[in-house]
């Protein structure tokens, strides 16, 4: 049996990355000759959720319930997953490659002593059980063997497209109330607040973001970029090089380890577009790259681009905006 941890949104729906993980599990199931797929959810799923999962090919939906699951604890979630796995005999334990998915699987790995592979994008064979996963923020791929059972891995976002199964699963709901040790509840969320308006908050929710990279030239080279940002009512986002040179504060950083943004328009100026940065901005709907190098990755990955020195182009854009507004 393949056991998939499915995360549920505040609205009670299975998140997309979890549905992708279930879709991924179906290929694995087929390769293994039709191994059944069970899902584990935390809390009490509504019928629609169970039905959705069945559509994706899930045989049973194990719902972890009880006071231990009122607030998040990675250890408690793992304890529940372990209990289901022991009862039903899972040979594979999976989750979405989300922060929570990876965290819970790491607990499972520690509890079973088996290796755990994060952010898998494909599997290469069952014996040995070989997966390919993203490393270095997706800039490289690692082929990795999972020699022990259960095979534990998370599925990277967008590794597959979530889809309904040709043959739906039974979608049987099983309510589980596993014993959870007190020790597993020590590290538990004690309060959840609306995200405080932290320094990088504006970036994550902005419709337009103006980006700036090494091409700004120096700490003094951001004047016209900030002006463009103001004209577009957009926050400034910068590449890692810019913060590591101390030109701009860290909270403005967009990237794998900075803020991940998803604006309607991202305008990276003088950013070469290394994978580190791309990881943080690839969800933008449109990208207008301004760069002197037409071969820069940011240009080739963008939807639109202007080639040249940002210090000539950006002032011209600012002027054009002001001109149209005046006119």
């Amino acid at each position, binding site marked *: 049996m393949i056991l998939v941890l499915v995360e549920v949104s505040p609205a009670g729906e299975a998140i997309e990355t979890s549905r992708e993980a279930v879709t991924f599990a179906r290929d694995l199931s087929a390769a293994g000759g039709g191994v059944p797929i069970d899902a584990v959810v935390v809390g009490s799923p509504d019928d629609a959720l169970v039905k959705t999962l069945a559509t994706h090919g899930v045989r049973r939906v194990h719902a972890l319930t009880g006071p231990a699951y009122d607030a*998040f604890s990675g250890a408690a979630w793992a304890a529940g997953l372990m209990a289901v796995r022991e009862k039903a005999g899972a040979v594979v334990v999976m989750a979405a490659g989300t922060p929570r998915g990876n965290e819970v699987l*790491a607990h499972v790995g520690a509890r079973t002593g088996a*290796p755990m592979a994060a952010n898998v994008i494909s599997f290469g064979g069952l014996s040995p059980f070989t997966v390919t996963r993203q490393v270095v923020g997706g800039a*490289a791929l*690692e082929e990795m063997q999972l020699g022990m059972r259960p095979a534990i891995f998370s599925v990277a976002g967008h590794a597959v497209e979530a889809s309904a199964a040709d043959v739906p699963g039974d979608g049987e709901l099983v309510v589980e109330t596993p014993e959870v040790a007190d020790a597993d509840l020590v*590290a538990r969320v004690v309060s959840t607040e609306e995200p405080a308006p932290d320094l990088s908050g504006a970036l994550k929710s902005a419709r337009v973001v103006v980006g700036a990279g090494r091409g700004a030239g120096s700490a003094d080279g951001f004047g016209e970029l900030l002006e463009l940002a103001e004209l577009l009512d957009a926050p400034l986002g910068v590449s890692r090089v810019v913060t590591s040179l101390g030109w701009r504060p860290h909270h403005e950083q967009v990237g794998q*380890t900075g803020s991940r943004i998803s604006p309607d328009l991202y305008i990276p100026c003088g950013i070469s577009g290394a994978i580190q940065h791309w990881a943080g901005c690839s969800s933008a709907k449109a990208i207008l790259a301004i760069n002197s190098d037409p071969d820069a990755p940011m240009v080739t990955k963008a939807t639109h681009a202007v080639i040249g020195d940002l210090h000539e*182009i950006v002032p011209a854009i600012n002027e054009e*905006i002001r001109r149209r507004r005046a006119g």
Partner: protein
Amino acid sequence: MTNPLVCVKRVVDSSSEVVLTEDGQGVDGRFAGFTMSAHEECAVEIAVQVAAADGGAASVMTLGDADSVEQLRAALAVGCTSATHVQADSQAYGPADVAREIAAVVRDHEAAGTPHELVLLGNDAADSGDFQVGIRLAYELGWPVVNGVTHVSVSDGEVTASGAGPDGHETFRLPLPAVVTILEGGVEPRYPSVPGRMKAKKAPIEEREPSAEPVGPSRVRLVLPPPSPSSVEILGEGAAAAPAVVDLFEQLGVLSR
């Protein structure tokens, strides 16, 4: 007094095109250079702040080759006061191996009368991206673990850690000792000052051998993903492209009046 131990890893700086080593077992750092992961830079900053808040001392450790001492010195230069170097080829160590070695250091330091109540790690290493060393360490030590937070403070024997969760900003509060893994974004890691760097140069480093043979990372090899095709529309060159750019703004409806 809180005496945190922060764990760092020497990794290739991945802010440029990634080049693999010839054996496909790692990333080649000769062009981009080496650094510690960004999450770990923040973990170091938090360790230094936590120690400073109540008069404790922050320690740093790494597992790596002789060159990884550079990352220990980087942490010493920004406020850590002691360092431990487990001499080993980090590529030959899987997450469980690393967790075991950190645990050995924690236990030995406790036995030596310099215990750590708090162990801080990055949420995941910038190269291997395993997302699990901190958690496996917690199981080795039998301590609780909070994962992927951006803010940490300690008072009255309790650690308060918080960060972004799927439902909002989540706060954890638990008694020490504990393991906490850090995500970048909550603190601004400081840069070394000249006196800091000079102090770091002179600080003694505890050199030690690994406690056991590694099981290994289960890695077969690394490969580079294929390049993605480009469909970019070039609007023009230089300042002359400004009208086309503003046309695009209008078309996308991002140009408010």
